[in-house]
């Protein structure tokens, strides 16, 4: 039983998702089945509008599936929970709170039984983990986009989640900042060992970070097209991988899926 749970830590069973819109019913996801192992890093990649963020929101518990079931650690997901933390694309920090207060808000809810000093210590530790000790008392509008996203990551990690859900976490950042944060995320994930699901549209990011890449077909009624195992040894180094054969092969596999078999018609 325990073995079974580890193998299928996060589980999506025959998940369908439809939205009621003004133009009628829009069928976003069609029959999604996916098992994620404990400690695994899974990326979901696809063209925009394919419903990859919907999959993430379903796992987060922000949406309920029209039909089908989702499980996390053997329990059905029906609402957000502290074991599943989310890093939002646009950081979603509250602008009237300092970095410390933003993280503290999450911490105090999860660890309700702890003293204020313990909670503050957790908050400081999370900010230190993402290298933001110097920005503790700054407000989000006083720091750069990369730093905001770090605070978002710190907020999620401070909850000590079992599953980290990342919704295009670095999509809004410039290429250099993105690379730095990807490297840091790899280190943090190796240290914490928690399961992660990341939505992305960046092929390099997906190959660099993931153990498996879930490639989705175009919507409406998007499905899982293919799942690619990324059998590259960890820790990974982006410079070394640039010359690596397997890496480049995997990369072109994803590109071929996205631009040959499931090319999106020009809008």
């Amino acid at each position, binding site marked *: 039983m325990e073995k079974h749970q580890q193998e299928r830590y996060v589980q999506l069973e025959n998940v369908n998702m439809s939205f009621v819109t003004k133009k009628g019913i829009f069928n976003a996801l069609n029959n999604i089945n996916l098992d994620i192992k404990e400690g695994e890093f899974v990326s979901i990649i696809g063209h925009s509008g394919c419903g990859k963020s919907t999959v993430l929101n379903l796992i987060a518990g922000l949406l309920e599936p029209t039909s089908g079931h989702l499980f996390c650690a053997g329990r059905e997901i029906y609402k*957000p929970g502290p074991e599943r933390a989310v890093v939002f694309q646009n950081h979603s920090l509250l602008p009237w709170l300092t970095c410390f207060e933003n993280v503290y808000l999450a911490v105090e*809810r999860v660890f309700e039984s702890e003293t204020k000093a313990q909670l503050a210590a957790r908050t400081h530790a999370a900010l230190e983990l993402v290298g933001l000790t110097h920005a503790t008392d700054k407000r989000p509008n006083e720091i750069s986009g990369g730093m905001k996203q770090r605070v978002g990551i710190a907020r999620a990690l401070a909850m000590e989640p079992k599953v980290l859900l990342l919704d295009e976490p670095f999509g809004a950042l410039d290429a250099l900042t993105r690379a730095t944060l990807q490297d840091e995320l790899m280190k943090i994930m190796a240290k914490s060992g928690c399961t992660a699901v990341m939505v992305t549209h960046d092929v390099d990011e997906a190959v660099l970070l993931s153990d498996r890449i879930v490639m989705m077909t175009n919507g409406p009624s998007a499905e899982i097209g293919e799942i690619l195992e990324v059998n590259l040894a960890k820790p990974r180094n982006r410079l070394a991988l640039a010359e690596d054969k397997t890496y480049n092969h995997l990369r072109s596999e994803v590109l071929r899926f996205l631009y040959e078999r499931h090319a999106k018609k020009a809008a």
Partner: protein
Amino acid sequence: MSTISINKVQTKPIKHTKRLDKNLSNLIKTATIATEAAKAANKPAPAIPSQFSMQSKAFFQWLIPPFLGVCLLFAIWALIAQLTKGLPGPISTLKEAVVLFSDPFYANGPNDQGIGWNILASLKRVALGFGLAALIGIPLGFMIGRFEFLSRMTAPVISLLRPVSPLAWLPIGLLVFKAADPASIWVIFISAIWPMIINTAVGVSKVPQDYMNVAKVLNLSEWKIVTKILFPSVLPYMMTGVRLSIGVAWLVIVAAEMLTGGVGIGFWVWDEWNNLNVEHIIIAIFVVGIVGLLLEQVLILIAKKFSYE
């Protein structure tokens, strides 16, 4: 000796460059120091006058347009006063104002009190009516914004009652309260409540979905949602509503008091009209304008204090 004093002075004005409007006193200080330094050095120090002239130039550029506007107003007023029999010009009004404001707090019975008492009486009514409106309107706005059902329920009532002229409510007030004072407070209340309800409700419905998602993911309690997310994000909208409300309240008080009588700036205007004291009416117009301006400025200051940007 003289070179040292110049060095000291040259470093000083650089600190003062940040805010122009704030810095009139600094400007004078700098200027004094500059002249002293120039005397001590016995030759003009080149950097300092240019600093001073830049600041003063910017200050005058900032001042000239509003100053011209006010001058124009007085000129037109003086011209019309020349052509109209019985309408006092700026100078005779100013003379009268000096007399009036030399003793603003006298009291010779209920119908003859100083202008200070009249202003305070009006402000008190506005404060009461507006305060009650805020007390009911803001929480109501929150609930309307938070619950779709309530919003749809109140929508027809609000759209029906909001366009009604404030003074139309006065007879109802007189009938229900059987007294003039509560009736005028009632009129203030009913006319000031709408902007606060509507703006607060709009603010709540405009809270970014991202923030609500954060609340859901962090599983925040309803209390934390209200204090940490809803309230700070609605605050700018709410303050706009409050500002509109206090503007309306101050507009309405003059008219209401004209009808109800008693002590108050509106009644005072009507009383002076009966006495055919036109200078006083014009003074009252300025007083109403200036008090309204001050109320608005105070609220803008408060709003700035609460804004997080």
